[in-house]
């Protein structure tokens, strides 16, 4: 389909103006999608955890890369602050096998590992495997709907 536009301005000026309008609109859309993605992934992490501490959910936040690019979940940051993020998402049978997954010094309290450095604290290995929470895939699926909705809002 072709659209012919007649303007009283110089052709270059109109093209520049039209490009600015489209770019500004695109910036709003991608920022909105990043905001939604951050909320969705936090929600999916918290909803799928039995007793969430919030540490994993807090590690996912939106970050602007350039005016038209945003990201949620910086892998280097995740590996440093919550190194178990992959295991929680994909599930892992490795715990208590030949994988040396020692917990930091602490103790069990009502099913949760509490870090500490008291005389009674100790190092331990979890006895049960982590079941896959699939919070990344859930978010990807939710984003398919979110993208359609955000784009339809802009029409």
């Amino acid at each position: 389909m072709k659209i012919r536009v007649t303007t009283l301005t110089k052709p270059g000026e109109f093209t520049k103006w039209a490009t600015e309008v489209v770019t500004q609109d695109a910036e709003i859309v991608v920022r909105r999608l990043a905001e939604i993605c951050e909320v969705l992934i936090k929600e999916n992490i918290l909803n799928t955890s039995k007793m969430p501490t919030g540490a994993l959910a807090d590690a996912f936040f939106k970050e602007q890369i350039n005016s038209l690019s945003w990201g949620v979940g910086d892998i280097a940051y995740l590996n440093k602050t919550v190194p178990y993020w992959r295991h929680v998402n994909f599930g892992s049978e490795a715990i208590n096998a030949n994988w040396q997954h020692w917990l930091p010094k602490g103790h069990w309290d009502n099913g949760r590992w509490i870090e500490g450095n008291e005389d009674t604290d100790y190092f331990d290995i979890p006895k049960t495997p982590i079941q896959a929470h699939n919070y990344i895939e859930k978010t990807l699926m939710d984003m398919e709907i979110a993208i359609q909705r955000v784009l339809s809002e802009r029409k």
Partner: protein
Amino acid sequence: MALTWSKIRCLENSLIDFLNTNLVADAIKDINGVQIVARVGRKEDNDWQLPCITAYVDTINLQRIFVGSNYRQDSYLMIIDIYATNEGERMDLVTWVADKINNGFTFYNYTPSESTPNSPTKVAGGLASLNFLSNTRVALGQNVDNEDAHRHRVSINVWISGS
């Protein structure tokens, strides 16, 4: 009376049926000549033999077809995990799986039978179409056990059309 199988359970079993039929038809075997199998569910059994493929429904989305409508377009998040014994096998298996399911698969309505619980009656009930959401190696680090050493995850968004 046996409980009727829900759409989720039928969908999981339809995909496994489709994969197992094609695994046999294409003679997909491991390096020792053992037939590779697909099974429903998350890996929990101790009697597992690698390599193997698992599939299950994780989440359902009940979208309205349009604003204000109570008609829903259900879509299902399905997780396919591939557990291989080496990296080459992992890549071969995931390529085979992705190629096979690309055009969708037949959805069957299963009716459980009390006399033959392992062979429920199945009736074709439409086509399950899909979009790929992710297709990635599961990297859980070094020194993981055999099941996690060469894993691959394919996640798909599935919807059923026709009848």
